[in-house]
């Protein structure tokens, strides 16, 4: 008979909160191994001989052989893989070809600035978007709503490579309030934060608005009003608690993207982040560095997604029961 499977007698169908946590973390660890494997294969997926690609066509055979040996490419693939995993477990990501320094050191220098920029711009986006979206939903069709949605449309339409230089022009060159570029003190954080944050706020505000609007039409909101609750309690306790859920997913995705490096904004402001490092690495065909950066970015995504899932579960009892 098809579809027969072991039936576990007496297995409790409803898993506990701990069970949920364990299953989420278990699946994250599995994905982790998958990501590491994919990054390992990256170098073998390069069309042609990776060594030739890295060194360019005119390289001498002796140099090629040396690099091939240095990268371990002259050994069987399975041995390379095991070796790679062993090195990973020691956080050894290899040597950068271009900078001649350990990849992990290079990455470590760039993680900090990227994280700071990501956190600050996301915070700005949340601080702007949530009140705007909630107000727009509450006063649907009125002036507040239209103003918020106009901002949202502009924010989504204006590209960062245009907004960034414009902000530099006004605030750094004309007014002289902020540094033009680079990372020198807290003031230098402002312009890149605004550039990234407003764009995200625009998308987020629209999401908050539609989510709140949807929830305000739900039967349980009517129940809450029928109980005699005031508008603030209806909004905060009943509507927003539910409206948050889809918004949280979007925030998770945006945060992941930010941690992966906001390439354009980092380039415009010469911000020493991961994004610009990755671009440099690709331009110089620095494969170990590309591998390391991709691995780090993938891991960050994984961490953010898992955190989002766990937060989701903390906020929505229905998910814990799955």
């Amino acid at each position, binding site marked *: 008979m098809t579809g027969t499977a072991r039936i576990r007698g007496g*297995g409790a*169908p409803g898993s506990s909160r701990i069970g949920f946590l364990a*299953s989420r973390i278990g699946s994250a660890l599995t994905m982790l191994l998958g990501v590491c494997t994919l990054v390992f294969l990256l170098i073998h997926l390069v069309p042609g001989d990776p060594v030739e690609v890295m060194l360019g066509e005119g390289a001498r055979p002796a140099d090629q052989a040396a690099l091939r040996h240095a990268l371990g490419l002259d050994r069987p693939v399975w041995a390379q893989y095991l070796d790679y995993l062993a090195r990973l477990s020691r956080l050894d990501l290899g040597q950068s070809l271009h900078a001649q320094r350990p990849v992990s050191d290079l990455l470590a220098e760039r993680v900090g600035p990227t994280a700071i920029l990501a956190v600050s711009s996301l915070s700005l986006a949340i601080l702007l978007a949530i009140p705007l979206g909630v107000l727009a939903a509450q006063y649907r069709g009125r002036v507040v709503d239209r103003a918020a949605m106009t901002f949202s449309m502009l924010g989504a339409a204006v590209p960062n490579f245009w907004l960034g230089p414009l902000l530099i022009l006004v605030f750094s060159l004309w007014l002289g309030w902020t540094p033009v570029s680079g990372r020198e003190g807290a003031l230098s954080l402002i312009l890149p934060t605004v550039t990234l944050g407003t764009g995200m706020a625009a998308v987020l505000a629209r999401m908050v608005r539609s989510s709140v609007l949807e929830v305000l039409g739900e039967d*349980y909101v009517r129940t*809450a009003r*029928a109980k*005699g609750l005031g508008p603030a309690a209806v909004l905060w306790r009943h509507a927003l*608690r539910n409206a948050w859920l889809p918004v949280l997913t979007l925030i998770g995705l945006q945060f992941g993207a930010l941690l992966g490096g906001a390439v354009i904004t980092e380039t415009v402001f010469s911000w020493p982040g991961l994004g610009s490092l990755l671009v440099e690495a690709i331009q110089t065909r620095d494969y170990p560095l590309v591998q390391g950066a991709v691995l780090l970015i993938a891991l960050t995504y994984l961490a953010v997604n898992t955190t989002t899932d766990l937060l989701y579960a903390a906020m929505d009892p229905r998910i814990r029961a799955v």
Partner: protein
Amino acid sequence: MTEPLLQVEGLITELGETARPLRVVDGLDLTIRSGETFALLGESGCGKSMAALSLMRLLPPGGRILSGRVRLGGTDLLHLTEAEMRSVRGGRMAMIFQEPQTSLNPVLSVGVQIAEALHVHGEGSDGRNRRRVVELLRAVGIPDPEQRADEYPHQLSGGMKQRVMIAMALAGDPGLLIADEPTTALDVTIQAQVLSLLGDLRRETGMAVLLITHDLGVVAETADRLAVMYAGQIVETATVSEFFAGPAHPYGRMLMESLPSAEKRRGRLATIPGRVPPLDRVFSGCRFADRCASVMPLCRERIPEWIGLGAGRGVRCHLWSEGEASHPGPARNAAEPESGASERPSGSVGEIGSPLLKAVDLKVHFPIQRGLFRRVVGHVRAVDGVSLDLSLGRTLALVGESGCGKTTVGKAILQLIAPTSGQVLYLGRNLAGLGHRAMRPYRKDLQIVFQDPYASMNPRMLVGDVVGEGLQALGIEWTRAVRERRVADLLELVGMDPESARRYPHEFSGGQRQRICIARALAVEPRIIVCDEPTSALDVSVQAQILNLLKDLQSRLGLAYLFITHNISVVSYLAHEVAVMYLGRVVERGGVEEILTDPRHPYTRALLSAVPVVDPEKRRVVIRLEGDMPSPSNPPRGCHFHPRCPEATSRCSEGYPPEVRLGASRYVSCLHLD
């Protein structure tokens, strides 16, 4: 007479744009006394819910009360500020809603949601509120209230959720409870539980209940007085016994006549033609005139006045104006005797009653998968060994409560879900396990009509294409012109204008759509139609039209129906044989009369006893079932029904009782048949 608790005078409510408003409540007058149950009766679109929401001042966006007075125990509610009104809502006047599934906030525990109501209307400390929450949950009959208070809505069954809603409404100790279709979304045995709970609470607390419903049976069983609402107005008020002895307004009378029942089996059901008029217009005559069986020229010329008939009874109808009062005789199309067609064999394909399809020990198990690798950790035994016989020109009703697996049986017979095991023998050929290609020749013979006529048609297809698609898909008719002619004939057959073919589904009402769905099923000239709750989304007057149509088609075309339903009165009107399902198995099957008049399985008895009777004089004894149906993933050992069965003994948990044959066609699975 006691001082009225609620007095509504001349209430007018509008929805929509001010330029083209919908006057959903138009001059409502209502008096409710303390401690009574007052029913507001009417079909969908009559304005009942909007009237209730107006009383609570909880109208949806765009809704506004234009004029009128709403006095609750001496307070004029329409003159209160919004803040003052909030202390009335959930305090002196509470409300529960139709859909317990969506009416509770999914992310807050039920205890928190009840405590919130306590907090708004009292000054109790958190500890005292917690104790009160547990008391309230206990009062509405929730077992283990301490534990349940910390659970979330999705952990409770539908009946439990409605109990929680009631507990929440009781938190403010209301004088008036507005219950808007409180049991419509519940199964009949759960409905019986909730209605008796409401009755008990009303007696204990002395609160009045305003019961909004479309269900005449519920009204007959629970209410003291009632008002019939039609197109935004009250057309009749009466005590329940007066009303059921003889409604004064033709609308109420026609509603009653359109209810299916065993006594009406021989004939057609009376129907109410047309539908509730749109409320965006100014009426110059009686609003019911276009659908009324007793209409007179005067009805279209003059708006009928409210006529008092003494002692709280009144009617809005010209029949009762001076000199006319003797007229409310039988309606024109009331239960007309059938012209002999209903029992006439079609003769086209074999003998009526000859076997057509046989399901043998049919099982459908759905795997439950968990964890990272989607490991199968168990099975939902949706259908767990069902045997049925369908015969030519006959209707087999498959009856049971939601979750018992009846819809899955229908789909498994049609091979829309692959059965896990068992046989589906159609004219001797086993359909179970046939692939798509092998099944194709049989598709033509086996068709289905779904429950929701709104969701079961592609909104972007023309009605003609919806109906004709099967002809093309099964290669029956390739020529477009011939197909169009067939579609026109089919539409005519189901009582629709052939011109409808050029329109889209959204342009039709629910009843018309269900006719289109029936035409679609008939297009390929099937011999068996699985009807999956085809009338449960429709109003009773429309239901009567569809039932008449199905009956006509059966006698003309010799169709066999597998009629899946939870509605016992429809069964008594339409079915020849009945199979009663509980938790994936048929517990009793046989002829319709023997089962409905002399049920032998304890579950059948409980199910039938829970159906409200449309006769306030006939007080039935409801066999109360405790709790809810268990999960089909983990059915109780032995007889699945024994944990809830009033007659269970220790033997019942030992093994599933074998099917015992009683008489020619009756089978029962119970150990206690003496």
